[in-house]
């Protein structure tokens, strides 16, 4: 974190890069690090929070062991991303942005991952997989969870 900020000369415009480093190191952005960055870069805490919540990439809560991000961009939405999302919500009882109580699965939505040709696309633990349907998505998530339980 300090290295990133130093490399950018503690300029305020290094904010996003610094937030990236924090998320890489800790998996999410907690209040302590947000305050620390705000102080070090001399940016108002509210502005840091505004940036952190503007980009879907940043998480303010710890993520589950596995992260499933459903693309709800226009192309994916038309090709049935809504159904995939609803199925996961119903099956696991979580809303986008939430994590199952056992900490196994986090569900996120993203706006366009740049894979519109493969719509609907779902990102499983950072890997973009295209042409998904409800069954395929659920099978993959089941795979994660049963693997964890065995």
């Amino acid at each position, binding site marked *: 974190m300090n290295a990133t900020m130093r490399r950018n000369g503690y300029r305020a415009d290094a904010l996003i890069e610094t937030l990236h480093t924090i998320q890489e190191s800790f998996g999410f952005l907690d*209040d302590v690090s*947000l305050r620390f960055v705000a102080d070090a870069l001399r940016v*108002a*805490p*509210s*502005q840091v929070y505004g940036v952190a*919540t503007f980009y879907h990439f940043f998480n303010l809560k710890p993520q589950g062991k596995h992260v499933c991000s459903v693309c709800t961009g226009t192309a994916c939405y038309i090709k049935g991303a809504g159904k995939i999302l609803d199925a996961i919500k119903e099956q696991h009882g979580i809303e986008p942005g939430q994590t199952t109580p056992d900490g196994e699965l986090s569900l996120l939505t993203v706006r366009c991952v740049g894979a519109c040709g493969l719509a609907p696309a779902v990102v499983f633990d950072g890997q973009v997989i295209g042409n998904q349907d409800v069954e395929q998505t659920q099978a993959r998530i089941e795979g994660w969870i049963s693997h964890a339980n065995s």
Partner: protein
Amino acid sequence: MAVRSRIKTLKIDGRDVSAHEDETILQIAEENGIFIPTLCRIEGLSLIGACRLCLIEVKGWNRLVPACHTHAEEGMEVFTDTERLRNYRRMIIELLFSEGNHVCAVCVSNGNCELQYLAQRLGMDHVRFPNMQPVRKVDMTHERFVLDRNRCVLCARCIRVCDEIEGAHTWDMRGRGIDARVITDLDIPWGDSETCTSCGKCVNVCPVGAIVEKGRAVGEMTKRKDFLVYLSKMREAKK
């Protein structure tokens, strides 16, 4: 007075007007007594062009442009009050009404509200869109002020005045789109904010009843905005 820039002549609603090239259409219109509605703009703060109410038509341009960000050009023909613009403006106000909970009858700013004024002035007699009836948090933690996000129109005046005039930058906006909300510090209760100086500037610039003084009854909240022009003038003079 020395000439600060070149003079341009243009037409606004068929009237011949002249203006400095660094003036915006909005300024020129106001100097000539032509009404263009605005909501996010307030004199003394930077322009963000967010409310889209000041959109105007220019002959030969196929896009509508915001008057607050469009500069005078020689021979330009501007229209500020066409049927198309009236429709869009009314729709913007209707969308604001449907997105939040704007119930004038129980609002402390009833009668002193810029949104209410615009709705009346632009002839909004009903809202075509279903009311979303959002449930948004009301923050009563500050000793003297109240933040009611249900009445917020996201004009960002509070954010700008706190940053540009007070210099505290206590306010900012979190999230985006329909989830956007004004926040204090790291989205903590206003009363717990360490950066807030309780100066009350945000209360006075808020165009609606979203940021108000505590203990006011319906229609009792009046705001003064003249301080802003005075403060920015004085700050400018010191530079």
